[in-house]
C-alpha cells in the first residue's frame, strides 16, 4: 500500500545531496557492516537509481538484484528506512527530507542474505510450491490436454482477482513478525495464494490444500498483525486472505464447509461465430483516393542517400 503522504512527497524535489547507509554483507569474510555513500540526486530519482549510480560511479562491489525497474518483477525488495519496499517504486524524495537526508537500505528480513542486498528466496519459493499453486481438476485431462476454457463469471473473478496480483517480491514475508519467530511458517504470500486457489471456482480439489495449510505452521500461526497488507506494493491484502482461510479450515474440520460451486468446461460453441465483412472507411477520404486499389498496390518508400548514410 502506498500512502497518500508518500505519493505527495514523491512529487517534491528531493534534497540536493542524500546519504545512503547501506547494510552490506561479504560472504567471503562473513562480515556485516554499514557503509555510507553521499550522492547527488535529481528529480524523480528512485532508490534503485541511486544504488545503480553508486555501483557505476563510486563502489562497483555493491551488489543488488533488479530486473524490470517498474514494480512488476519483484526482485528489488529491500528494507528502506525500516519498512519493506520495492526500491524501484520508492522515490528518494518520498523517504528523504532536507532536514534528514539519511536513507538506510538493508536486505529483506527473515530471508537469508547471499551478498549485500541480494537475498536467497529458496525457502520462500519452496513454501509457495507446497500449497500447489495451480488449478487441479478431478479429471486432469481437462487441464493437461485442454481443448476449451473453464467458465467463470466476472463476479467470481473479482473474488480472486486481488490475490492473483501477487508478484512474489517477499515484502509481506519479511514484514511478518510470525515468520521471524517461526522459520517454518508458510508466510503470508503462500497462504494468500492458497486462499486464492481454494476460492477459485475453476479449482476442484480444495481439500488437498486445506490439509497443507491446516497445520501448526500454517494459517493458524497468524496473529493478524496486518503488516503484510500494509506493506504490499500490489494491494494483495494477504491478511484478509489468511483470516478467510482460517474460517474455511475451521468449518471444514467441523464438516460444515464444502466448495459452493465449481465451474465446468465451456465446451464447443452452440452457434457459429458471426462473420462481419470488413469495409474500408468511406466518410473521410482524400478526394480521388480509392482505398481498395491502394491496398492492393505494394508500399514503396523512397530513401534519400542522406537517410541511408545515417
Amino acid at each position, binding site marked *: *500500500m*502506498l*500512502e*497518500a503522504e508518500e505519493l505527495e512527497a514523491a512529487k517534491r524535489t528531493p534534497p540536493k545531496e542524500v546519504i545512503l547507509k547501506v547494510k552490506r*554483507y561479504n*560472504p567471503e569474510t*562473513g562480515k556485516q557492516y554499514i557503509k555510507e555513500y553521499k550522492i547527488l540526486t535529481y528529480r524523480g530519482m528512485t532508490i534503485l537509481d541511486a544504488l545503480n549510480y553508486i555501483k557505476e560511479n563510486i563502489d562497483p562491489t555493491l551488489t543488488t538484484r533488479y530486473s524490470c525497474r517498474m514494480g512488476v518483477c519483484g526482485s528489488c525488495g529491500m*528494507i528502506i*528506512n*525500516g*519498512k*519493506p519496499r520495492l526500491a524501484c517504486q520508492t522515490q528518494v524524495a518520498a523517504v528523504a527530507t532536507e532536514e534528514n537526508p539519511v536513507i538506510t537500505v538493508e536486505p529483506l*528480513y*527473515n530471508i*537469508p*542474505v*547471499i551478498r549485500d542486498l541480494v537475498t*536467497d528466496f*529458496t*525457502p520462500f519459493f*519452496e*513454501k509457495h510450491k*507446497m500449497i500447489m499453486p495451480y488449478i487441479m481438476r478431478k479429471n486432469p485431462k481437462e487441464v493437461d490436454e485442454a481443448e476449451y476454457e473453464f467458465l467463470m463469471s466476472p463476479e467470481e473473478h*473479482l*473474488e*480472486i*482477482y*486481488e*490475490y492473483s*496480483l501477487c508478484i512474489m517480491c517477499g515484502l509481506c514475508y519479511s*514484514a511478518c*513478525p510470525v515468520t*521471524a*519467530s517461526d*522459520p*517454518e511458517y508458510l508466510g503470508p504470500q503462500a497462504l494468500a495464494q492458497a486462499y486464492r486457489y481454494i476460492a477459485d471456482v475453476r479449482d476442484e480439489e480444495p481439500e488437498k490444500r486445506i490439509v497443507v495449510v491446516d*497445520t501448526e*505452521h500454517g494459517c493458524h500461526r*497468524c*496473529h*493478524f*498483525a*496486518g*503488516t503484510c*497488507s*500494509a*506493506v*504490499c506494493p*500490489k*494491494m494483495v*491484502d494477504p*491478511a*484478509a486472505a489468511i*483470516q*478467510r482461510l*482460517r*474460517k474455511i479450515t*475451521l468449518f471444514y474440520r467441523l464438516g460444515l464447509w464444502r466448495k459452493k460451486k465449481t465451474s465446468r468446461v465451456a465446451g464447443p460453441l452452440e452457434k457459429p461465430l458471426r462473420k462481419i465483412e470488413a469495409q474500408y472507411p468511406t466518410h473521410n477520404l482524400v478526394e480521388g483516393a480509392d482505398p481498395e486499389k491502394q491496398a492492393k498496390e505494394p508500399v514503396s518508400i523512397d530513401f534519400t542517400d542522406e537517410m541511408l548514410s545515417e
Partner: protein
Amino acid sequence: MNKTQKQRVKMLQNMIGFFRASLNPWVIRVKFKENPERVAFILHRVSGAIIAFYLLAHIIVTSYTDDPLAWERILNTLSSPWNKVGEWILATAIIYHGLNGIRLLLVEFFGVGIGRPELPKPPYIPPSFKGGQRKALYAVFILSIIGSILSAVLIFTGKLPI
C-alpha cells in the same frame, strides 16, 4: 512438512538468529495510523506475557502456606505501594487482552469485519483495513484506556468515584 521438504527449506548460515529475529516486531517501522493492528499485536503479546507471569506467581504465592498467620504476613508484604503499581499494570493488561481477544476471535474464526475482495482503486487501502475490525480496534484502545484509568482509581484510592 515432511523431512525432504524440511531439508529443502533449510536456512543458510547467515540467517539471523532466533533472538534477533524475535525482535522483528519492534524493528519494522510502519506508521501507527497506517497499521495499528501491529501495535495491537505487540501489546497483545506483552499483556499475555504479563498475565502468564502473574498466573505463575499467583499459584506459587497461594500454595506457599496453609497457616493463617503466615498468610497474613504474606498479604502484608503484598500490600506495599509497589505491588499496587504491579496490580494496576496487571489490571490494564487483563482488560486490554480480554477486549482485544474478543475482536481477534471474531476476526480470526468467523472472518468478521475484514471486508470483501474488491478491485484495487486509489487510494489503495486494503479491504481488511477498511472493514469493521479497524473500528473495533480503536474501540478496544479507547475502552482499555478508560478501564485502565478506572482500575487505577479503584486500586490506589480503594473505591470508585461513581
